[in-house]
């Protein structure tokens, strides 16, 4: 077991009349299997799985679209592809995946390099 500490900060001075400053942090207990910082090329014609839906445990996952132009669709893969997020150029996401859900990425108009890492919840 190990501890992974994610911290998210959202700030804005012009999204509302009052300055916005939200910080969320939570030390997470994680275990194997995990994948350190990795990069793959997301294709356009089919989804590329980055977290196997055979993993019967929750997993924390980070994904970033490294491409400078094109977007990547992100989906869970259990039974059917269920797209729920779109990463534009340079955008990232962090969430905890349901057990057996799996995660895949698919580029829209041209192949994109996608960076990711995941850690199984301990």
């Amino acid at each position, binding site marked *: 077991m190990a501890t992974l*500490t994610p*911290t*998210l900060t959202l700030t*804005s001075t*012009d999204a509302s009349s009052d300055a916005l400053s939200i910080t969320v942090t939570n030390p997470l207990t994680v275990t194997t299997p995990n994948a*350190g910082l990795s990069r793959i090329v997301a294709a356009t014609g089919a989804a590329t799985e980055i977290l196997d839906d055979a993993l019967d445990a929750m997993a924390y996952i980070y994904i970033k679209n490294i491409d400078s132009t094109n977007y990547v669709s*992100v989906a869970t893969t259990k039974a059917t592809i269920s797209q729920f997020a779109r990463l534009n150029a340079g955008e990232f996401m962090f969430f*905890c*995946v349901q057990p057996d859900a799996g995660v895949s990425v698919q580029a829209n108009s041209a192949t994109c390099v996608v960076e990711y890492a995941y850690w199984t919840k301990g």
Partner: protein
Amino acid sequence: MATLTAKLTLSSTDLTSDTLSMALTNILTVAGDTRIFRRTVLSAEDELFTDGGIVIAAANYGKSYVLFHNTSSASAEIITLGLADNDGSGDAALETTNIALGAGEFAFYPWDSSTDIVADAASGSPVLEVGVFEAA
């Protein structure tokens, strides 16, 4: 138009032999609707009666940056987030699960706004904090 700065850091001293310390920053342009709110998440059985499982309705937003934070401190109060109505029945039941948030856990991602986001509690009635920032 406004600017939302999202910064994510991931750190660990015992995950691998090498210390993990990474920081990502996105400067996001947002416009349109912005909402930050809290709501109680009920169990699936209760939601089916109230038809109130929808947390964010796709009809109300374009692509948006969303923050979900399970504010509960009870380990059994896991909140599951997913998509509604992929069976075409027209209800607000959670039918495709994507994300699980344990006590204190959060998720941040750019929601594509193609389908309503529905929440379900494994037990109890945890409070979910939600931030929605519609992309420009």
